[in-house]
């Protein structure tokens, strides 16, 4: 393994690769530190990746597992657990044209086993939890993580506990409980759930994927950057727009590109990184606009529940990344989120949940403001499936109901579509 230990992001204190997440000296978050084999050539590194399976385990050299990829053999890893990743990167020319941009790509992470990017982080966290000997996995979730932890528990035969805010969308609740997890709805918002799980993690010998296993979990998000780069022919896009909830995904996308630049797999600058938040929960965007490094927590009130983290622990690092790359962090209203979902669906055939609406609407805002250069390539990171948040699109389009007769079809539908095209 190339991972050599955990290291505090604030003060640099080093720790062993165990279920630790907080620096005992300064309370800073711990992150996995790697020592890559310098003797490997770039061509050899690429070969190692390309000969791997069609899932995140092709990037095992950059992930914190002691025993390498899980599964009976390297060739067969796609048959172990719930293989995540290798989601499509699709060119979105019609979206680009509508926004007046040249080159837009959509990284469609709804195409994961439980339909969100969370399968990446949960795959890494559960694999590491098994290596460390845990029997139970658990999480605090805004919904997508709940789906993923419950499903991974079922796939691996591990008991699981999932804690969610009690007001979560029904689709996400149903798509969690079905896996046979112990589903606990907490009367409070995500930050209350997170606080409870932080307390519980000290009392139970469980692997809370996003608490005591957080350093391993977070590393899974780097694979989005790896895939984007590999899918673009080992190059770095000019710009990336990605959602921000806790700031972990956004920060790790930057770290993914950075690690590959460091070992020579990629050349050039980091992408200009833009973060996307909902106005009803925008502590990172607010801090960015005010020039602050620390985020003041807020009480979330937005339809983008998967991004409704009012106390974003990785906010300072997300702000730093946006600033360092010349990007920014923006926020969009609930109406803009709904329009964003529609825009993406209409122009790409990809139906995303509210978080994807936030990201798409933010791209539209950046384009309208002229913040994206005419020659630039942009990657839009779509993190979850529209079927998870159906309420957001209810009533957003018209449909027709007719009798099963040609006459009624012609009278109702033909007339209506003529009226629409006539109005254009």
């Amino acid at each position, binding site marked *: 393994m190339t991972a050599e230990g955990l290291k505090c992001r604030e003060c640099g204190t080093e720790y062993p690769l165990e279920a630790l997440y907080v620096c005992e000296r300064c309370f800073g978050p711990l992150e996995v530190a790697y020592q890559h084999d310098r003797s490997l050539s770039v061509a050899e590194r690429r070969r190692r990746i390309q000969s791997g399976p069609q899932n995140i385990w092709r990037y095992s050299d950059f992930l914190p597992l002691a025993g390498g990829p899980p599964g009976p053999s390297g060739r067969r890893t796609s048959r172990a657990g719930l293989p995540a990743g290798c989601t499509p990167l699709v060119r979105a020319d019609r979206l680009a044209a509508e926004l007046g941009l040249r080159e837009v790509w959509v990284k469609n992470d709804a195409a994961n086993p439980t339909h969100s990017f969370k399968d990446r982080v949960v795959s890494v966290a559960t694999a590491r939890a098994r290596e460390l000997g845990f029997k139970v996995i658990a999480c605090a979730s805004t919904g997508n993580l709940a789906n993923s932890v419950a499903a991974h528990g079922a796939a691996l035969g591990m008991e699981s506990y999932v804690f969610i805010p009690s007001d979560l969308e029904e689709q996400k609740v149903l798509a969690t409980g079905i896996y046979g997890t112990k589903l606990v709805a907490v009367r409070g918002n995500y930050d209350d759930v997170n606080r409870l799980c932080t307390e519980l993690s000290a009392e139970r010998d469980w692997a809370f994927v996003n608490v005591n296993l957080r350093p391993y979990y977070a590393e899974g998000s780097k694979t989005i950057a790896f895939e984007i780069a590999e899918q673009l022919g080992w190059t770095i896009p000019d710009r990336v727009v990605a959602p921000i909830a806790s700031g*972990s995904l956004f920060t790790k996308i930057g770290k993914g590109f950075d690690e590959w630049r460091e070992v020579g797999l990629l050349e050039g600058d980091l992408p200009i990184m833009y973060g996307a938040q909902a106005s009803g929960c925008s502590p990172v965007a607010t801090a960015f606009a005010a020039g602050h490094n620390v985020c003041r927590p807020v009480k979330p009130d937005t339809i983008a529940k998967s991004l409704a983290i009012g106390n974003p622990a990785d906010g300072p690092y997300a702000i730093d990344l946006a600033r360092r790359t010349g990007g920014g962090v923006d926020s969009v209203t609930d109406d803009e989120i709904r329009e964003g979902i529609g825009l993406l669906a209409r122009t790409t055939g990809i139906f995303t949940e509210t978080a994807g609406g936030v990201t798409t609407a933010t791209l539209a805002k950046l384009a309208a403001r002229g913040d994206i250069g005419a020659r630039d390539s942009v990657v839009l990171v779509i993190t979850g499936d529209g079927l998870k948040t159906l309420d957001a699109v209810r009533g957003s389009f018209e449909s027709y109901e007719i009798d099963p007769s040609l006459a009624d079809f012609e009278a109702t539908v033909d007339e209506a579509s003529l009226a629409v095209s006539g109005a254009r």
Partner: protein
Amino acid sequence: MAVTVKIPAQLRAAAGGVAEAEVDGSNVREVLDSLFASFSELRERISDDGGSLRRFVNVYVAGEDIRFMDGLDTAVADGAEVTILPAVAGG
């Protein structure tokens, strides 16, 4: 006034191994000062040089984040519970 402070696992070694401590104080600053008087090592773990909380330290009074109230000046009622926890990312 007696207040219970819940100490996170990561700080227990610096607090004589205890999970909670009974201290006095009518606001968070006084409560923490009183805690530091018993366990001096805790001060530099939780506070920065200027006396503010480090940025990855969250403090709650009766379950509410003190940043939604008056920060270190937040009043603490007799018998209330003050919880210190690390900030954790990931949703």
